[in-house]
């Protein structure tokens, strides 16, 4: 059994309005960070998973992303995975 470090990022699909990103962008402008644009805020998740192989671990992470970690109606995800301690 191997253990893998996984980082998942989940964000709203581009067509979905992100009120939080919008409000934060406005706030950044007020504070003088005029160059900040297109702010979108999503989730960043860190976890460890176990699996016989990297392939198996990837499969399970993908399932988790689709079923629990993201809401496919409005979100998209991406993840990175690497074996721990290697």
């Amino acid at each position, binding site marked *: 059994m191997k253990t893998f470090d996984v980082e998942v990022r989940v964000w709203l699909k581009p067509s979905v309005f992100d009120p939080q990103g919008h*409000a934060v962008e406005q706030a950044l402008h007020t504070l003088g960070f005029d160059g900040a644009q297109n702010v979108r805020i999503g989730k960043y998740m860190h976890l460890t998973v176990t699996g016989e192989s990297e392939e198996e671990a990837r499969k399970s992470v993908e399932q988790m992303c689709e079923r629990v970690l993201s809401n496919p109606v409005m979100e998209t995800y991406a993840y990175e995975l690497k074996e721990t301690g290697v």
Partner: protein
Amino acid sequence: MKWAVVVFPGSNCDEDAAQAVREATGDAVDLVWHDATDLSAYDAIILPGGFSYGDYLRSGAIARFSPAVEAVRREVAEGKLVLGICNGFQVLTESHLLPGALLRNNHLQFRCEMVELIVDNNTSPFTRAYQLGERIQIPIAHGEGRFHADPETVAGLRNEGRIAFRYADSPNGSVADIAGILGEGGNVLGLMPHPERAIFDWMGSVDGRRLFQSMHQYVEEGLAHARANA
């Protein structure tokens, strides 16, 4: 004495706080827009509850950059009384006028109900009308009220008598059951429960009145003292 209630975009307990002050003390209250740069005309300032800037990013994180919060900082240094209720408490921790932070409730839900508080300090300008150890009924209404601070900070708060109120039965997982804390100078109080919702009998409790009355008494005594010395 004269009170200010600062209104941030998204504040929603501003009128409630003003109503409570008028009812409990009979004093004059102004609602002051967040772009105010000078609050020196006021004897006490309330940062009210609500969702300033939608609580986006972190509650209180954006409001703390308002000109009014800079003005509050100056008045705190002058020894004026500043009361942050719920979102106001969050603004005070975000602006480091109070230590710690308020995180999402441990059960992840917004929670609104009457809770029992224990008065842990009755010598501050905010709590002198209560008995030490008294149990009072004040409602809460928050999703991010779990007080967090590192152990040294919490020990410091305890040793310096700066924990003003504790929950009898914590509704959010706060460290040391903290519901409200005092600032270093004792003239800033942040608390998650809403004393302005415990003013009239029909609200189910009138225990919030004495908080505003404590502040009134403290300020009036100070003003009388100043007049006598003048």
